[in-house]
């Protein structure tokens, strides 16, 4: 129990710092950069989860069926994030002309991560493994929260 708490504390703090790293940027001009950072951190979170999943599987902390389920869901989340990253990358300015499309792509990422959590992580029997995987989901959610915040702001109208 103590171990889980320590790990959860670590990741929670990392998560909080992750949020701070986004706040340091400043004004509207670097909105695209914030999207890039968020995509990078989501990609890093998925990468972390793959490695932890492998470690747990190797140590028998999750079953083969649990690992298979997690793997399939991670693949889906990774594909959704790839589509999002590729599209944002091609955009020069984020404004009203593209925010709806980016919103849809981002919604796919959000739902894939939500499913990874509900159908994958929460189904893990080993409580400690579940708790650690949940912490990683929390870091990914923190990165996604930044994008949600950006999308909630009114977008500038495109210049003709």
């Amino acid at each position, binding site marked *: 129990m103590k171990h889980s708490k320590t790990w959860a504390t670590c990741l929670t703090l*990392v998560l909080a710092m992750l949020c701070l790293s986004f706040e340091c940027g400043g004004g509207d001009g670097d909105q695209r950069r914030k999207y*890039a950072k968020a995509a990078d951190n989501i*990609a890093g979170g998925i990468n972390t989860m793959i490695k932890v999943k492998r*470690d747990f599987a190797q140590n028998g902390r999750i079953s083969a069926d649990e690992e298979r389920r997690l793997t399939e869901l991670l693949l889906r989340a990774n594909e959704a994030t790839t589509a999002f990253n590729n599209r944002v990358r091609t955009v020069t300015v984020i404004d009203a002309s593209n925010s709806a499309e980016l919103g849809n792509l981002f919604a796919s990422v959000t739902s894939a991560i939500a499913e990874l959590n509900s159908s994958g992580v929460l189904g893990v029997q080993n409580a400690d493994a579940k708790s650690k995987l949940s912490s990683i989901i929390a870091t990914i959610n923190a990165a996604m929260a930044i994008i949600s915040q950006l999308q909630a702001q009114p977008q500038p109208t495109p210049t003709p």
Partner: protein
Amino acid sequence: MDWMTIITNLLPLVPATGSAGQATVLAQLALELITRIKSQTGMTTEQIFERAGLTLEQNKLMLLEDLERLNAGTGSGGSSGGGSGGGGGN
């Protein structure tokens, strides 16, 4: 940066978790996260996008590798539809 100092100071806490092997993996992961966040400040936006793309590509390869391993090594009770697997690959 102040927040970097805080994260770095968290590292000694990581070995307190679980088994030794697990602690090593977790420490590595914490380091990777730190490196990733830290480096973002020194990268251009395009570089961040590019790294995200590379990580996602690497993720995909790792996951496909895992699926292959899991599907090849099955054993555990009954994924339906048995196993004609052969096919004539080159």
